[in-house]
């Protein structure tokens, strides 16, 4: 069969006929020098970024930059909405859609519902953020009446997806409360039909078969504490004079028989941990983990009292954290998949168009808007940190009580309204013009504890110091394809790709 050219009814026009790049305007964007380089990072509020030179930036700002100067940069600026063509009437609309996607978390309502079922605990951890009560002080357990009221309030939240997280104290000491909440939630959900996930935070110490039967039956996920190898774990998490690590291991092995490898250990970093990152990671791998979250200690509760002994400065933390990231990235370069969760969260914000829920780093703050905490006594708080503050005697952030208020009261409470108003990074001094703004957020509680008001003061803020240092590190790395590959493997939990690269 042969084919020949087709009949035409008009002529084909040249490319130049379609190229109309002449007139453009600027959209708002932020810019900042990338530390230790001559490069400038410019970002839009939707999180698009371009790395360029100071000269180019100047000519863009003066609008003397044109397509012919650097076609690929021009098109990058155009498609990432730093500039728009004056004849393009829908340009703003496309930008709005992008922004809406990035801020999707605003539409969801409270997703995370934390139930503090007791404040009793057998541990006396040095860094504990709350004030643990004696094992026999049963008055510190949530009553059935408070538990059911709390569940009713949770179900009124508009969120379709809900995570019910059980916190303590040691949740196993008040397991009947856990059972009540799970059963009552499932019962009410026959009407509400939400997607519900249960997470039990527990040390796993002295967990028993009956409890595990219930956990398995109700598909409850287990989140536990593992501070590293035996010596470190025991040092951080003492129970009188017993070997806590051994007790944890017993509980862990038993739990694994029931729920398999779905137990997620969480690390708390004490001063001692800073010098043992390699041992800690090896320990995590021993427990079949391919990720770790290296969060810093919070300045709350027990930890404040012992800060001198087990704490560290923001600078010490960052020195440690960035070194740890280097170490972890190198593992991946050698073909071992291992992920750091906090960096993964920030990378997801930098590299994807999607919103990411993370209540401690959102703008406006996720406290209250995306999370609620039901304290054992029925008090409601916008975040775990707020109830810790209350335990220290400061009830500033209390939103109400399950017996006295409705969900609507809580959401419209002056405390929550103010909290939200004061935590829009887009309008805060030191944040609003920062290049990292689209990836960052606010922690008004942290500001309150460390700097005594919701707003905080960026130049002296530890929060800002840490965030900035991590962004600088990540933006340097993502310019190199080999690191970028690893970062995408982290974002997608794609373990295969690391192995493929090595083979």
């Amino acid at each position, binding site marked *: 069969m042969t084919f020949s050219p087709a009949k035409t009814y008009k002529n084909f026009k040249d490319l130049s006929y379609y190229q109309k790049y002449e007139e453009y305007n600027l959209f708002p964007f932020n810019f900042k020098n990338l530390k230790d380089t001559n490069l400038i990072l410019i970002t839009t509020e939707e999180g698009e970024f371009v790395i360029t030179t100071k000269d180019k930036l100047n000519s863009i700002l003066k609008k003397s930059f044109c397509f012919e100067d650097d076609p690929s940069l021009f098109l990058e600026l155009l498609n990432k909405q730093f500039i728009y063509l004056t004849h393009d009437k829908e340009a703003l609309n*496309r930008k709005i859609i992008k922004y809406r996607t990035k801020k999707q978390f605003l539409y969801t309502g409270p997703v995370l519902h934390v139930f503090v079922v007791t404040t009793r605990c057998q541990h006396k951890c040095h860094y504990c953020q709350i004030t643990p009560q004696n094992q026999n002080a049963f008055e510190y357990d949530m009553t059935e009446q408070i538990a059911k009221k709390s569940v009713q309030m949770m179900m009124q939240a508009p969120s379709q997806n809900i995570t019910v997280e059980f916190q303590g104290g040691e949740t196993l000491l008040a397991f009947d409360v856990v059972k009540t909440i799970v059963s009552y939630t499932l019962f009410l959900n026959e009407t509400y039909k939400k997607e519900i996930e249960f997470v039990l935070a527990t040390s796993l110490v002295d967990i028993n078969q009956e409890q595990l039967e219930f956990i398995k039956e109700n598909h409850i996920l287990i989140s536990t504490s593992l501070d590293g190898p035996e010596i470190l774990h025991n040092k951080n998490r003492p129970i009188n004079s017993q070997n806590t690590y051994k007790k944890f291991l017993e509980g862990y092995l038993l739990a694994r028989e029931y729920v398999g490898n779905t137990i997620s250990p969480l690390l708390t970093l004490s001063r001692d941990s800073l010098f043992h990152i390699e041992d800690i990671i090896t320990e995590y791998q021993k427990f079949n983990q391919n990720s770790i979250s290296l969060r810093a200690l919070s300045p709350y509760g027990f930890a404040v009292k012992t800060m001198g002994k087990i704490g560290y400065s923001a600078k010490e933390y960052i020195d440690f954290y960035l070194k740890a990231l280097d170490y972890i990235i190198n593992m991946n370069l050698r073909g071992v998949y291992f992920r750091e969760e906090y960096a993964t969260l920030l990378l997801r914000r930098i590299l994807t168009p999607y919103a990411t829920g993370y209540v401690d780093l959102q703008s406006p703050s996720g406290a209250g808007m995306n999370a609620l905490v039901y304290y054992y006594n029925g008090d409601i708080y916008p975040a775990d940190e707020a109830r810790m503050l209350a335990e220290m005697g400061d009830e500033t952030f209390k939103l109400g009580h399950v017996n006295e208020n409705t969900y609507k009261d809580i959401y419209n409470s002056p405390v929550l309204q103010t909290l939200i108003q004061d935590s829009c990074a887009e309008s805060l001094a030191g944040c609003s013009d920062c290049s990292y703004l689209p990836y960052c957020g606010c922690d008004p509680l942290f500001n309150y504890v460390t700097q005594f008001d919701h707003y905080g003061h960026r130049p002296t803020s530890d929060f800002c110091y840490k965030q900035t240092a991590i962004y600088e590190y990540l933006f340097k790395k993502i310019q190199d394809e080999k690191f970028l590959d690893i970062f995408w493997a982290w974002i997608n939990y794609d373990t295969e790709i690391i192995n493929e690269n090595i083979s």
Partner: protein
Amino acid sequence: MIKLLHTTPYSSIQSAKVRKVVYNISEYIDGDNIFYTTSDNVSVNVKLILTTSKDIFKKYKNLKEVIYFEKLDEVEEYAILKLELNSIYLTFLPSSNAHTLFFTSRCNHYCLMCSEPPKIDNDDYLIQDNLKIIELLDKDLPVLGVSGGEPTLLGSDFIKIIKKIRKELPQTEIRVLTNGRAYTNEKFVQEIADIAKGYFVSEIPIYHSDFAKHDYIVQSRNAFFETIDGFYKCAAYGLSTEVRVVISKQNYDNLADLMYFIYRNIPFVDHIALMGLEYIGFALNNLKTIHISPLEYMEELKQAIKLCRNYALPVSIYNLPLCLVHEDIRHYARQSISDWKNEFSEICYNCEYKNECAGMFTSTQPFFETLLKPIIKNED
């Protein structure tokens, strides 16, 4: 005149029930009443006989309506035919792997590589043809394509035909090949969503992340921005969309940027198809401007696939034989070519992957012939 849309390569059928559509008198006959046969065994119920046998013709011409053809070897049971003076059009063959309604040959684009060059003649009669064909289609047809030209140019008639498809074939997925510009009209999108949401996928081409290059490739100013706007309107009304990228010399070096653009602007698309050229129609008029061998753009294609994996965007390679796709990304290649224009070369019969291969468009074969290389499993 209705386009010949479907043919099957082989037919051993000696006699079959077929369905006929006769439009000029708004009539059709179904099943038993029409018969294609070469053997002398015709039941009394049969009203119309199609045959290639002169004997049959002579025997029945005074008893029934009989139409004689010299050659008629692709008819099969329950095919839909359109009969006109001296010609027969195979409109629907049940055994085909792709069924597409041709809405119009008019188009508001004039793509450099168009495989189906548009015409400006009035072809409104196709509307009635299609409405009739829809009534006759098998009710369990999984997928029905809609093509052109630009089918949405029919406007309210487009809606009318979609409505008809939904009514006659409530479970059939409708896949419309469109440039999406009509979707800038929100009312139009809403109407479609009201009728067909959940079963309606628009396959919309974007050829370049530079709006001017896209507009140039489709030969229409403002095409890019309107098409993107169309994607948004579809998403707003819950209509599914796919991106189709035909790879040519004009855009092979832009694939990575294009994937990024899709990811950051329209990440809700269900699928991206990266497609080899079909060397027919305008592709031959503009051969120098658009032709590039797949071997020359393989690195760019690999990079695009890698990005889609990072971006978690479902992606496929269409229209390329497996041996011309790098082995790392071979599993993204699909058997995308409709059976009626699909070819294999002599050399392909030595290939162990022939059964999983898309083969080539009949028209593409001359361009790929010298590049083909049969794949043998476990070469090491």
